[in-house]
């Protein structure tokens, strides 16, 4: 093998092979380069070698492998992100594209893989959206006073609507609290916090009006205000003094330095508040 072209071409494939092997996320290209290099064995000259490469359509295989390995790299990322459902679809795409006999089949496999991937991502995104909606509704619910029934009921209804969406998709809130593709998008909590949230969500269905609590806070409010009525004029004067110090304002803030830090504020406008 004294042909300088062979040496040049071998070096080219060897460099690529070493680099792709080191990365570990390009299995089909690695295999194609290995095969191309193996075919150099015993080749008379570079034309002979290229003839062997053409006979096995390895240039086309290499082009397919580049596309397949992109899907494989995405699959590795999905797996390392604890998303095995997405990883499985992406791995299937890598396999099918790599095995496609020609470019038409590659196109077909790519289109099908695109559709399957989009469907999984859309389903996960819809579930996640409903899941986060339930969390926010539960937070609103749990921070409302027990005597604030209208608002508690409003947020309980919001949460129930979200739970119904999850149910329609064949999932439960508790399941999704354990599923990384949802859980990682919520607060970074330990299991016990998630369990407490699940209990809150479970309690939404049983939310009832608490008339005793309503009466208690109503009585307390009556006592507080009734006791203050002799000072009505002083309180009105106090509020007038506060109003005199109240303006409508809007500011422009900016951070032009490159590192994090305080914003500089500039008042854009000030006007009367009523």
């Amino acid at each position, binding site marked *: 093998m004294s042909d300088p072209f062979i040496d040049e071409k071998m070096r080219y494939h060897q460099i690529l092979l070493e680099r792709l092997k080191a990365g570990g996320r390009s299995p089909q290209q690695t295999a194609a380069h290995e095969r191309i290099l193996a075919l150099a064995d015993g080749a008379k000259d570079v034309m002979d070698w290229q003839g062997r490469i053409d006979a096995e359509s390895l240039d086309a295989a290499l082009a397919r492998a580049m596309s397949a390995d992109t899907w494989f790299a995405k699959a590795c990322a999905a797996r390392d992100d604890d998303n095995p459902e997405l990883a499985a679809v992406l791995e299937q795409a890598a396999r099918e594209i790599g095995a496609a006999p020609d470019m038409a089949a590659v196109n077909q496999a790519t289109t099908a893989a695109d559709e399957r991937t989009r469907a999984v991502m859309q389903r996960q995104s819809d579930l996640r959206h409903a899941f986060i909606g339930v969390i926010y509704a539960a937070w609103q619910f749990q921070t409302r006073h027990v005597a604030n029934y209208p608002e508690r009921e409003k947020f309980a209804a919001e949460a129930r609507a979200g739970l119904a969406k999850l149910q329609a998709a064949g999932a439960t809130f508790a399941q999704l609290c354990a599923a990384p593709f949802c859980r990682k998008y919520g607060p970074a909590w330990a299991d016990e916090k998630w369990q407490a949230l699940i209990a809150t969500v479970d309690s939404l269905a049983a939310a009832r009006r608490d008339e005793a609590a309503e009466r208690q806070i*109503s009585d307390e409010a009556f006592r507080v205000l009734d006791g203050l*009525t002799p000072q009505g004029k002083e309180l009105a004067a106090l509020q007038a003094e506060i109003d005199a110090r109240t303006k409508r304002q*809007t500011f422009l803030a900016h951070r032009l330095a490159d590192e994090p830090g305080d914003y500089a504020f500039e008042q854009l*406008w000030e006007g009367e508040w009523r």
Partner: protein
Amino acid sequence: MNDQVKMMLSGFFTAYESYKPLLDEAAFAPLAALREESLAMAEKNDDVMSFMQAATAAELFNRWTVALQQAGEAWQRQRKEKPREITLADFVRQYEVLRDDVKSRPHTERQQAAYARFLACADGAANPLVMMRRAEEGACVAAIAASGFEDTNQLMFDRADPNETTQRAYYAKCIELARDVRANEDLTYGAELAAAQLQQAASRDEGVRFALAMLFGRAVDFDKLKWTIRTHLKEAPNGLAKAPEHIGRFLHENGTALLIVRAELRHIWRLLTEDLGLTWEAIIGAPRWRKALLLGASVLPQTDRVWRGMTPANLEWLRETLFDEALSELPTAAILQRRPQQPFQPTPLSEDDDRFGLPGKARARAEALVADFAWSK
């Protein structure tokens, strides 16, 4: 042609230029027709949204993808049927077309440099094979894609508010990935993983913003109820029971609401501290949470470093409302009698915005502030 539309089509047009010298007329005709159609569509739809609608309806991008794949196959066929040696000049020319396209766009310094390093591999090379071997030895081919990714992320990093640490950390990670990349798949893997992690971190941030908005909104409600009671209590000088029925009921309802809202502020504070692990110092010490509390909204499309929002004095109002009043041990009657140091300063009404041209003023000032920065161009 709209700049964003031009960017969308640029990759297709560059590929068109690459195939022009390689394909015979018949094989090249579909690309030429698509280019004409794309130009006509861009001419007819001057804004990006209407162009996207028209392109989607006509499946323009899919058809480009298919046509380019077919062009690739035609090129392979031509090579087999009419083998001709590609000269180094032909080979270099294909990359010069791509380089020229990159050069025509701003903020592409790294990718231009990567093309220059790649094209320099042709100096003294006997043929394309030698050039490619040299290019691979210097990892110049992977660097072309990676440097484009780096340029994009460096620009986004520079344009991003330094206090928006989640976004900035993502751009910084992408820049780091691009600098270390040895194979395209490494970049794909790293970018996909970083994007998923960004979405997760952004979603967690959104949870904090949601809770802060609950806190701020309830504090404003608390203020309004105090205002209503202080303003109207004088209408019942002899006690609620002796006041006209509608006055007595009105005050009683607002008093009840005040107690309820006070209790709810305590609940929200518990959510923020016990469930989300925050403290007042952590909230007020983080500029991005201060920005969220002040309802900061970007005024320029290219950057969130400049924003419009409430007066920063409202942060002191919030502190006082929470710690000197709602969360304190002070009886509610004493809170109503208390003179606050910092009253709440509301934002302009939408008619104030219109009457005084406030959005335009904000934009003009913001543009002046960022005018000298390369990233704003």
